[in-house]
């Protein structure tokens, strides 16, 4: 199961957790704190191709809309349908129940290029 320790992070605050060639994607605890009050998640479609670094999803909070960028490239295999009725899960459990979607990776090297938790934490403390 994914948690903050066993994920890798993009500089745009998404995390990915790899199991085989499937990466689960979410947003970091820091990102959910910044966005706060999440009220709607416009998830990608199952079967959609996403590209690392490209926006693929929108998270709406009361005050703003935030673009979410795919940390890795591939095909969306599954989306977190629990967020349809409870988008606040992303705020409460950003690294667990609040995951966004799962991608079948086409370039696993992209995953290796993401930051580990301590490197990511260093970027947000600047």
């Amino acid at each position, binding site marked *: 199961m994914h948690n903050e320790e066993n994920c890798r992070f993009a500089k745009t605050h998404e995390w990915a957790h790899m199991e085989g060639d499937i990466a689960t994607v979410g947003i970091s605890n820091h990102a959910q704190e910044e966005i*706060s*009050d999440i*009220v*709607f998640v*416009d998830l990608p479609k199952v079967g959609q191709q996403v590209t690392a670094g490209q926006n693929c999803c*929108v998270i*709406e*909070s*009361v*005050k703003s*809309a935030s673009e979410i960028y795919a940390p890795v490239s591939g095909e969306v295999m599954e989306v977190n349908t629990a967020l349809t009725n409870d988008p606040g899960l992303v705020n409460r459990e950003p690294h667990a129940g609040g995951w966004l979607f799962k991608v079948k990776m086409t370039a696993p090297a992209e995953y290796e290029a993401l930051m580990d938790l301590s490197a990511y934490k260093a970027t947000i403390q600047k």
Partner: protein
Amino acid sequence: MTTDLKTTPLYNACCQAGGRMVDFHGWLLPVQFQSIIAEHKAVRENAGMFDVSHMGQIWVEGKDAYPFVQYITCNNIKQTPAAGTYTHMLTPQGTIIDDMIAFCLNAEKFLIVVNAACRQEDFEWMKTQSARFNVTVTDASDQYGMIALQGPHALEKLEVLLPGISALPRFHIQAVELFGEPGYVTRTGYTGEDGAEIMLSPTGIVKLWEALLQAGVTPCGLGARDVLRLEAGYLLNGQDADQTRTPYEAACGWVVKLSKEDFIGKPALEKQKAQGLAQKLTAFELKGAGVPRHGCKIFYEGKEVGFVTSGTFSPLFKGIAVGYAQAGLTPGAQVEIEIHGRRIPAVVTKTPFYKNRV
């Protein structure tokens, strides 16, 4: 942080309470403390407070104070001592410079409370217009800090500090002394709830903030304030109205009293009233998922008819918005609002979205 941003007397208090400070028209103000949704709930169900020290206070004093305020704004100003009147100050073209509340202290003394973003321009305009009147116009904005205390339990909280204040009628003003400092309380607000706005010296306002915190009042930021005022159907000048829009276009026809002898903008408004409107500020409730935002396009019968000026997620009504659309759309009309490239169904609705005891 850039140094040219202004801070209010409550800046440190807001930071201590966990406020996320943002640039709001050149002022550093809290957009939120803990959560916009929690703050919204506090104001709708209990009591919340906002730092509104950035708002402007302008005194109009002298023999012609009443005729002057009547001349520079379009509503019929009450001249009963302590009574306040919501009004608009217009250009000669009938467009909106600012919306404001004019409080009558006596026939020769009015306090006008204006928006932060416009306060300099408002003051300059009033100064210029005052030349042929026997009045003095004074910008006292820096002498006052201001807290908006709002919610069904707001008055009880203030009653503890100012016994008897609950007797102040809605939209009225009272001179008070709090913590040994002179100030004013008005029974007004921008949330659709009962409450008061308190103007006090910069040192006094900090003491009031601390006292209200102790009394369990929730500090609230601009984020919650925007949701609350939109639910209550209040205009945000600079966003829902500006110097390209008249009060008629801004759906504030009730603020225009053409029966008044003369006021700046009157001939232009008479002409517009006779000719009819092309566009009018209209309210929408989203029927699909999503959050309408400023700038989203509005479609009616497949044609683009306008755009959203203010939109948000309301914890009570989900996606709500106001925007300029072709005049004549009536409540119930089906429209679409384009959000992130997708057209989401919405319905024209009456304002306010939220109606309470005030």
